[in-house]
């Protein structure tokens, strides 16, 4: 069953100071099934983040439409959880209060929302940090809190925009495993934007490759690796073969973008 339907969605940014308008995204179509984990892979500036932001309702499409469970997306809402590349925890709230932010908007009673928030903090390995402020946390911990904050809202789909882009390699690998673990347990529909090929294969069930600007979908490749996936899977021949194929796809695009 299709959960999310992206139909001919494109984006043209108006020209700055009388300049030519720029097309960031060609009309793009994408079907996302229930409980699917799709990674969107592309070079910098290919419009992959623009596509995700349109789905999240943070940007309006210049054409086309988006349907989530059959109803059109018109703006941001609690049914689509969003995790940003930048650190977006509210600095004046503790980890627990941050995670409970959306629940409070929904009108969940305080005792219940704090219980759910504690529960989610524990699930992302921050059970001992519920009363910490964001500035007391490392970058990886902040992003884990951000993921917990989005999931505590129980969204229909989780949208992640290069959430581990600012983290160091070791932390990033641990975060990928944690996210994958959550997905395997909770069965969520996930759209994950990244420019890291290994990351795209490791966490995704399907890798959608986007072309250089103006972005369009260039390839849609299933990842037939078994679950649960331990980090050791990254050295198996199947993984390496898939990686080589994607490296070629992306290389062509980076070269195209430079010329």
């Amino acid at each position, binding site marked *: 069953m299709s959960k999310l339907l992206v139909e001919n969605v494109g984006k043209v940014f108006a020209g700055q100071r009388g300049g030519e308008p720029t097309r960031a995204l060609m009309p793009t179509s994408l079907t996302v099934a229930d409980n699917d984990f799709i990674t969107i892979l592309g070079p910098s500036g290919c419009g992959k983040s623009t596509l995700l932001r349109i789905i999240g309702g943070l940007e309006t499409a210049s054409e086309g439409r988006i349907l989530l469970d059959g109803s059109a997306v018109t703006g941001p809402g609690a049914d689509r959880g*969003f995790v940003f590349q930048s650190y977006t925890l*509210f600095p*004046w709230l503790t980890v627990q209060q941050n995670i409970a932010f959306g629940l409070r*908007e929904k009108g969940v009673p305080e005792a219940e929302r704090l219980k759910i928030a504690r529960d989610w903090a524990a699930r992302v390995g921050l059970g001992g940090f519920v009363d910490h402020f964001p500035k007391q946390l490392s970058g990886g911990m902040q992003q884990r809190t951000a993921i917990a904050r989005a999931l505590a809202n129980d969204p229909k789909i989780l949208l992640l925009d290069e959430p581990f882009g600012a983290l160091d390699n070791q932390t990033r690998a641990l975060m990928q495993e944690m996210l994958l673990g959550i997905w395997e347990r909770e069965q969520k529909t996930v759209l994950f934007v990244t420019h890291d090929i290994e990351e795209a294969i490791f966490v995704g069930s399907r890798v959608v490759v986007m072309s250089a600007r103006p972005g369009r979908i260039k390839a849609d490749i299933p990842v037939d690796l078994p679950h649960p996936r331990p980090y050791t899977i990254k050295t198996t021949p199947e993984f390496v073969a898939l990686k080589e194929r994607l490296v070629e796809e992306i290389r062509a695009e980076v070269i195209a973008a430079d010329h």
Partner: protein
Amino acid sequence: MRPLQPVSATARIGYGLTFFALFVALWSVATFGGYVQRLFLADPLTMVGEGWNLMTRYGFGFDIVMTIWRVVGGFILAVIVALPLGILMGAYKPIEAFLEPFVSFARYLPASAFIPLLILWAGIGETQKLLVIFIGAVFQLILMIAVSVGSIRRDLVDAAYTLGATDQSVVRRVMLPNAAPEIAEIFRLVLGWAWTYVIVAELIGSSSGIGHMITDSQALLNTGQIIFGIIVIGLIGLISDFLFKAVNQRLFPWARA
């Protein structure tokens, strides 16, 4: 000394006090050494003596209380008006476009120039003093609050929307707490400016207050009393600044660097 190298807390206090000591020393040399005539500048000891006289014999304590009440009263009135207006301007761009040009203009109107008009409208009572402080503070407050509320990071607002926040709760639960420490800092700053207006207000048409005492002392050529009055203003400013900082740090532990 190297650029940006920090100093310890004790050294910081020591350096700060040293300058005060240096200042008094220079003043003593100038007055006790006879370089400046007593008529123009009293020496530190005379100043302390005159201050003692003022406090014990002339009821200067009452003047101090009157001045503080005028500053605080006028300032609170200004905050009551400026806080909602500033928040609305910071959050909603059409309201900003509507009010910002006028407020920017009004903020350059010198509060002291209104004193003759205010005396005409409100007499020489307390209302007039409060209004001088109000006019001097309110426009500055509105603009500075608007800027601090409006300068929120866009992605924090986006994050709130994706968590299901309504427009109203984005203002109430995101923009306001985000700006709160800076607004408290603005209060501290503008209260300092309000002190300069109150003295001017008291110089004209007043029968009490630190400014009134200073005008009286001028008539008697008592520079010791004038300097004592000025120093009292400085001390009260220093104390209120210190209190504000302490309260802000307690209220906003998350914002401390």
